């Protein structure tokens, strides 16, 4: 059995996973409208590449990635693009972001897909490009674009590929059911990933001990492969990337760095499945497995839900009773955030919709003062001092917060869970992190502003000096001029001399005269044409007028010719 390491701290919240595992993966009716936010991942938002009114097929790309850290968005079903505008999005702030709305025609007409069952012939770059093009992002909840993560993995040698199937968050059973029903496809996905990462030495699947059926299914599927299924003791948060890497390998990811910096890549099992669908079946990421659970919902079950389905549509289909529900949570009870309304769409990172009853997750008790009892420090998996961080977050002492390693906090919620005084510690840390980042950015922009200001000062001084030098030269010249006391005649000659110097040299004058001669000739022909015209149709005084202008043009030609002969003599 592989040696395991034990992470410090951690809590054991009631799992509540049984309710949603009674039934298999269900399917929902296609919602009438689908809302697809353009930012469903870490990085820059995608750019729409369709217009309002376009008819789109299922799986067609409707927004392309922009910038190096981004992911495209595809149409989850065939239909018509009805709007591209700002809509409220599932985000703790409750603010809105740019979304594309599709009215589905419920014909489910697929775009033609190009699967690559022989992905091994393709080079890792091409396969990674396929993954990127299919819009695959981390489905574990973070939403890091998978292609970017695998490319990171390729720049530095990767010796261990870890597939995260722990799913340590209570209530959520999406990965569990996916493994039970589609283990083989996940293994194929792992094959694709290891191909992209140039065959890492070790491939481990970390799964918690509270999922016996899933473990058997995985062992069955991995029998003939080099993949090792490792059963990890059940403890929240053993599923965090940093925690799982430590549990399986005993190594710690250095602060502020990625697992790829120590030769490891950690991918969620759902993402591996999506990668298989993207590369082998050519299907973009348009739907995901999601748990709908909580006592306020009549039916607790896992569904394969189209991305962009409004939460209200899902709740409707699961006998949801608004009166019983104390709050609506997207994600698990520990790290999920509460939604302000049920009209918000499901996105790629939605692992679960939790509608707990008042008894399940009761109203929050008001916060009592912190007695530094240290239960939070015992629960912290990153072995920080949450009570000191809270103390300095309260008094906004940024220096001390960073000295106590605030940015190593993974916001897992274990400390707030055990805090006897009900202090929302994680919110204190999130807002302090935000403030520190804001003040850091302000400092950077202030430094830039100072640089620009100093450069402007230098520029103005240089211009001033240049003007000064010119003024000086002119003063010296007039000075010299005054002291040389020459008479009035000399001054006139000097002026003439200056004028002649400015006269152009003879051959320049000849060229100028020739040009004016040609111009005069052209005007003469024009005048004659107009004269002929006037003779044909015009009245008497028009003919006289044209006659005069012809005469003038002819004289001009004569005059230029004469000046030219004079010059040649």
């Amino acid at each position, binding site marked *: 059995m592989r040696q395991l390491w034990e992470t410090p701290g951690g809590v054991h919240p009631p799992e509540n996973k049984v309710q949603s595992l009674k039934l298999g993966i269900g399917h929902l009716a296609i919602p009438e409208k689908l809302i697809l936010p353009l930012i469903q991942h870490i990085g820059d938002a995608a750019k729409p590449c369709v217009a309002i009114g376009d008819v789109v097929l299922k799986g067609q790309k409707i927004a392309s990635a922009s910038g190096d850290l981004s992911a495209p968005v595809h149409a989850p079903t065939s239909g018509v693009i009805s709007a591209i505008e700002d809509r409220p*999005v599932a985000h703790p702030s409750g603010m809105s972001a740019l979304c594309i709305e599709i009215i589905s025609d419920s014909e489910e007409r697929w775009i033609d897909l190009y699967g690559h069952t022989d992905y091994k012939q393709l080079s890792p770059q091409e396969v990674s490009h396929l993954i990127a093009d299919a819009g695959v992002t981390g489905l574990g909840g973070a939403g890091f674009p998978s292609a970017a993560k695998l490319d990171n993995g390729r720049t530095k040698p990767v010796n261990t590929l870890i597939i995260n199937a722990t799913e340590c968050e209570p209530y959520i059973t999406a990965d569990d059911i996916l493994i039970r029903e589609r283990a083989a496809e996940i293994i194929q996905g792992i094959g694709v990933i290891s191909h992209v990462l140039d065959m890492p030495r070790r491939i481990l699947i970390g799964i918690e001990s509270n999922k016996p059926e899933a473990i058997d299914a995985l062992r069955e599927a991995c029998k003939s492969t080099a993949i090792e299924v490792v059963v990890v003791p059940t403890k929240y948060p053993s599923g965090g990337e940093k925690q799982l890497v430590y549990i399986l390998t005993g190594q710690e990811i250095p602060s502020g760095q990625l697992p790829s910096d120590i030769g490891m890549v950690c991918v969620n099992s759902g993402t591996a499945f999506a990668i298989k669908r993207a590369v082998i079946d050519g299907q973009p990421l348009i739907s995901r497995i999601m748990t709908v659970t909580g006592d306020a919902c009549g039916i607790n079950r896992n569904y394969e839900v189209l991305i962009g389905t409004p939460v209200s549509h899902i709740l409707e289909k699961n006998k949801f009773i608004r009166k019983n529900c104390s709050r609506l949570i997207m994600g698990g009870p520990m790290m999920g955030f509460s939604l302000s309304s049920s009209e918000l769409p499901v996105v790629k990172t939605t692992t679960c919709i939790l509608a707990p009853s008042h008894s399940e997750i009761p109203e929050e008790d*008001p916060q009592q003062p912190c007695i530094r009892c240290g239960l939070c420090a015992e629960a912290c998996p990153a072995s920080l001092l949450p009570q000191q961080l809270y103390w300095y977050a309260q008094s906004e002492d940024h220096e001390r917060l960073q000295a106590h390693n605030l940015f190593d906090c993974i916001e897992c919620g274990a400390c707030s869970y055990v805090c006897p005084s009900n202090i929302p510690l994680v919110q204190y840390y999130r807002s302090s992190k935000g403030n520190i980042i804001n003040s850091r950015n302000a400092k950077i922009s202030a430094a830039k502003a100072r640089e620009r200001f100093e450069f402007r000062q230098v520029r103005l001084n240089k211009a001033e000096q240049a003007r000064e030098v010119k003024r000086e030269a002119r003063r010296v010249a007039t000075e010299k001029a005054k002291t040389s006391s020459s008479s009035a005649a000399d001054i006139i000659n000097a002026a003439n001399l200056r004028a002649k110097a400015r006269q152009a040299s003879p051959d320049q004058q000849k060229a100028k005269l020739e040009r004016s001669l040609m111009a005069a000739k052209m005007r003469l022909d024009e005048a004659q044409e107009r004269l002929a015209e006037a003779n044909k149709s015009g009245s008497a005084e028009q003919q006289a007028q044209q006659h005069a202008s012809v005469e003038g043009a002819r004289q001009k030609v004569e005059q230029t010719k004469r000046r030219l002969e004079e010059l040649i003599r």
Partner: protein
Amino acid sequence: MIELLTENIILAALVSLVGLGVLFGGLLGYAAEKFKVESDPIVEQLDELLPQTQCGQCGFPGCKPYAQSIADGDAINKCPPGGQSTINAIAKLLDVAAPSLDEEHGEEEIRTVAFIREDECIGCTKCIQACPVDAILGAAKLMHTVITQECTGCDLCVEPCPVDCIDMLPIEEDIDQWRWSIPKNQHQLIATSSSTVHETLT
């Protein structure tokens, strides 16, 4: 010599103390030479803390002169763009109590950015000369526009514009600048029993 001193005490007292004074004076003179000190680096650190808007609301032509005057003991609460956080930072550096912002120099508002209404701009370059950080793009008789990332919101350009086509717009927050706020200060909580409604934590 010693007997002479021990008889008349006054002379002894005089000689000993003056002697000591002279001795220590000499010692300190020599030490002053050895420990010569050049310029004061504190101005640099103060300038670091100021928001570099070069707006002049503190009464000085820029941030550096104000930093210099703080080093020479000027009041530290004259910088409205920096606001209370800058005052606290300076107070922490100089280890003095942090006063509140001096109203006479202006209040601390949310950050604003200059914006030129392009249809009214006549291209007179007055604002370009006034902008301390060259954040306005344009040339004589050609269209002017403000580079929003570079503008520090010091509104020095608003006043010289003859057609008054520049106005200061607040920077609105979009979704990835949004930050969690610190929970309401629970010490003033008026909840008498545990079941009171905990108002929404925005």
